[in-house]
């Protein structure tokens, strides 16, 4: 399953990499919002993990654009937010995100969520 992690912190991308290491996932990376949109459109991942505060284009806007485009609206979008306030979570959900994780997050909880998405996909196929 193809999966995109968009975060401007290289170490956070590395963490997601190590967490999801294995044969099941092909992990794509983006370091800012514009790159995230390009990769999502070009590669059509099943799932996008999106940081909110990113250079060039923030994660909320990336999410909105993905959900507004019929070609990408099926991609499962999960926000990774460093802001714990309810307002930020609500903004993410309002932008069309399917789920969100607040930093610091548990890598194993993230893995569980990703596996659920993979199983749903397998069943749908």
């Amino acid at each position, binding site marked *: 399953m193809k999966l995109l992690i968009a975060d*401007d912190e290289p170490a956070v991308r590395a*963490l997601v990499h190590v*967490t999801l290491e294995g044969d099941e996932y092909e992990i794509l990376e983006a370091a*800012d919002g514009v790159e995230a949109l390009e990769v999502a459109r070009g590669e059509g991942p099943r799932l996008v993990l999106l940081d909110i505060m990113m250079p060039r284009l923030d994660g909320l806007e990336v999410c909105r654009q993905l959900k507004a485009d019929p070609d990408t609206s099926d991609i499962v979008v999960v926000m990774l937010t*460093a802001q714990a306030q309810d307002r930020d979570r609500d903004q993410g959900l309002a932008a069309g995100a399917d789920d969100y994780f607040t930093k610091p997050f548990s890598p194993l909880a993230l893995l569980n969520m990703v596996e659920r998405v993979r199983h749903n996909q397998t069943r749908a196929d």
Partner: protein
Amino acid sequence: MLDRAPPLDREQEALLGLAGNQIAGALEAALRLEEAERAAGEARAVFYAIADGVLLSDPFGRVTAMNRALEALTGWTETEARGRPYAEVLPIATDQVGGPADLVSRYGRKVPVAVSSAPIFDPRGRVVGGVDVIRDVSKEREIDEVKSALISTVSHELRTPLTLIHGFAELLVLRDMPVERQRSSAVEILDASRRLARLIDDLLSVSRMESGRLVLDPRPLDLAAVVERILSPFRAMAAKHTLRTKLPGNLPVIWGDPDKVEQILTNLVGNAIKYSPGGGEVLVTVDHDGDTVQVSVRDQGIGMSPRDMGQLFEKFYRVDREEVRRAGGTGLGLYITKRLVEMHGGRLWAESWPGVGSVFRFTLPTSDELAGSGR
């Protein structure tokens, strides 16, 4: 000519007595009136001079008086406002009851205000009017906004290293990983904890500087010796970089706090190495021109575009580039460095060319100059 006035008869005496009482009463009344007028004059002076806006209204809500501060806030003069309904002179817009309120001036300008109101009673307890005190709280509102922006930035900056520590530690504890992976995860944890510690140090420095608690302990300094001293740990660590100095022999003694001058140089040399990931030369030059000494730190690194440099010395500003993210940092280093230079009476500035490198220069006063200025 009369030697003396003729004696008064009883009736005259009585009349004179009465007149005396009348005059005494009138005098007392006159004094009381004068007293009352003085008190009224004082009240009026206070009313007009007070820094907060004050408006008086009659029981029908019509303006009877307003002071200078309120004239400035509303754009109405007292003469124009008198007799008008109070809501016309003092329109207050608020999103929610008890929430922040904005006064809309006659010309449409919005001013954040705090309003307190009270009825005015006569001696028999009847309401004869009202008083409103309107305080301009733009400054307070601004400080609140800066404060919450700061808290939000700091919590974001703290959460990122915390995410890495939590994440890699959880993987180490709950996951079987090859030894190499375990090692690299431990390195990530170490890096993130160092970053947290640095962030906290920097935040404390900034807070001490801004509250004026950071004071210099200046003394005559041999700048060339300081430069050599701070370079030696960098020389030991830098594998890809050549660190060179150009120090003239006849440098005057400078006047500075040894720890802080070291911190300034360490920050700039550290940046020069950090932002030239490909290696190259880092050159520290000291020049001397009249009563100031100029230090420059030149690198052959990634450089910055004019746009990148716009807010370079602002708090928490980080150039929006992948290489910069990768290098890590708190966004406080150059802000602190600049403040430290300025506390010494010097200046710090930068020149840069993308892909070519950057030069950071700062000046410090010589001890002669400060001795000459009577310090």
